[in-house]
């Protein structure tokens, strides 16, 4: 029972992190039709940026997280505006561009910070005790911030003019533009939002998990898997799938052992995709 509760909490924490990553990934796919292979790179960059702001610039950790979010968001904005924008409808070209950016980001980090994991620890330690359960305070704080950020993303997408415009562009770009919505203004903003979310997640999570130049690889793989599971481009689907994947990972590592966790996850995804090929929340086909 104790291990079940602990595993659930870990799963929910993982799910919240994954949701932030997957939301950015699915937004970019849904709105621009681009699969952002650099997504994991922005996660790593966010982690290293926060590390640099704390260790080299001596800033408090919360401020470092905010700055890391801004840095990755601005970089994402520029990347879309200067490179992706020209080739946005060319799937192969954007694949090469984002993959190339990922290699540049991770290599740049490797050269700048070296291959070893830097000492980057969450400023709060200690555990919260409730009866037989122990919860690390750092994880609870990260969970709370992630949940708030998810709510923020939802509010932005479903409650603001900007979010409405982004959803319209995702639904039918040509008709949306013909209603006066500006792809050239909104695409870079969407990219900035997605990359900023990845960077923020990196800044929040790497002090707890690990920070190294290559930690973006599994992030990309997991984001991809969640977004396919939830239905490409679906915001609600990505959120539900993220928590599902987080919980499956946590339970399987507790009850099946580490290496079988990934196997369990892929079997689950395989089954879901056989039953529902468009994912859990694949888009409703347009009625003529």
């Amino acid at each position, binding site marked *: 029972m104790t291990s079940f509760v602990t595993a659930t909490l870990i799963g929910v924490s993982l799910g919240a992190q994954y949701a932030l990553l997957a939301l950015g990934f699915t937004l970019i796919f849904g709105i621009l039709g681009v699969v952002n292979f650099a997504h994991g790179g922005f996660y790593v960059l966010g982690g290293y940026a926060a590390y640099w702001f704390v260790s080299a610039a001596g800033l408090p950790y919360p401020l470092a997280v905010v700055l890391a979010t801004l840095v990755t968001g601005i970089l994402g904005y520029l990347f879309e505006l200067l490179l992706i924008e020209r080739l946005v409808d060319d799937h192969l070209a954007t694949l090469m561009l984002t993959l190339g950016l990922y290699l540049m980001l991770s290599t740049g980090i490797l050269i700048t910070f070296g291959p070893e994991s830097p000492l980057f620890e969450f400023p709060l330690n200690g555990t919260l005790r409730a009866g037989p359960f122990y919860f690390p305070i750092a994880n609870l704080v990260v969970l709370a911030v992630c949940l708030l950020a998810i709510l923020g993303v939802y509010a932005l997408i479903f409650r603001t003019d900007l979010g409405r415009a982004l959803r319209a562009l995702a639904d039918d770009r040509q008709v949306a533009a013909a209603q006066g919505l500006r792809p050239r203004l909104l695409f870079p903003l969407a990219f900035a939002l997605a990359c900023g979310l990845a960077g923020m997640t990196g800044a929040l999570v790497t002090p707890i998990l690990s920070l190294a130049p290559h930690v973006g690889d599994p992030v990309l793989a997991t984001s991809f898997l969640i977004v396919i599971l939830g239905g490409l481009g679906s915001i609600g689907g990505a959120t539900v799938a993220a928590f599902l994947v987080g919980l499956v990972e946590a339970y399987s590592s507790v009850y099946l052992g580490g290496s079988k966790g990934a196997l369990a996850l892929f079997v689950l995804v395989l089954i879901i995709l056989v039953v529902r090929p468009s994912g859990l929340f694949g888009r409703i086909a347009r*009625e003529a």
Partner: protein
Amino acid sequence: MLIVEGLDVRYGGITALRGVSVRVDEGETVLLVGANGAGKSSLINAVIGTVPSVAGFVRFQGRDLGGMTVDRRARAGIGYSPEGRRVFASMSVLDNVLAGAFGVGRQRQREAWDWLCSVFPILAERQAQPAGQLSGGQQQIVAFARAMASFPPLLLLDEPFLGLAPVWIKNISDAIRALQARGTTILMTEQMARPALKLATRGYVMRGGEVRREGPVGVIRDVALAEEYL
């Protein structure tokens, strides 16, 4: 208000429009009639900018639209209700309509929504429903309202009656009259010319990518009758 002069449009090697000249004056409702493939939709698309023209020009309120992106043309004051309606299927009716009024401020969005609901009561009834779940006629109303949400001086309606039941044809006709009463200038295409002729003031008959006849609605009716568009 809108002047199209000597317009050529090609898709790949196929000529869709050849030397087309059309004008729409303020307050008019101009109808383009013709068979499928006559070039009606190509002309609408060339005006809003979703297909490029290779010769000729499109001038709106004295401004040459050549080289302007689709979204700039829309913001210049051209509303567009596309063929096949193309509502944002996953978005609510309210979000569909307000997507047509981006960045004008809550107050003006509110006013636009209230006016549109007074003309099209179905909007208020279906406000929160995803537009993809509506019937064809209801979707057509949503597409109109979306195009009208910023109150553009010129409205392009591409095949507004296509595939609709008779009861909806009457509803849509009433809706178009409400827009006319507001002073909106309209350029519309229609294969089902009969209901559209009741709304138009002037028209053009198109065939094979060219304008064959133009004139007041009575003349267009006679030509359309002779060529069996009715």
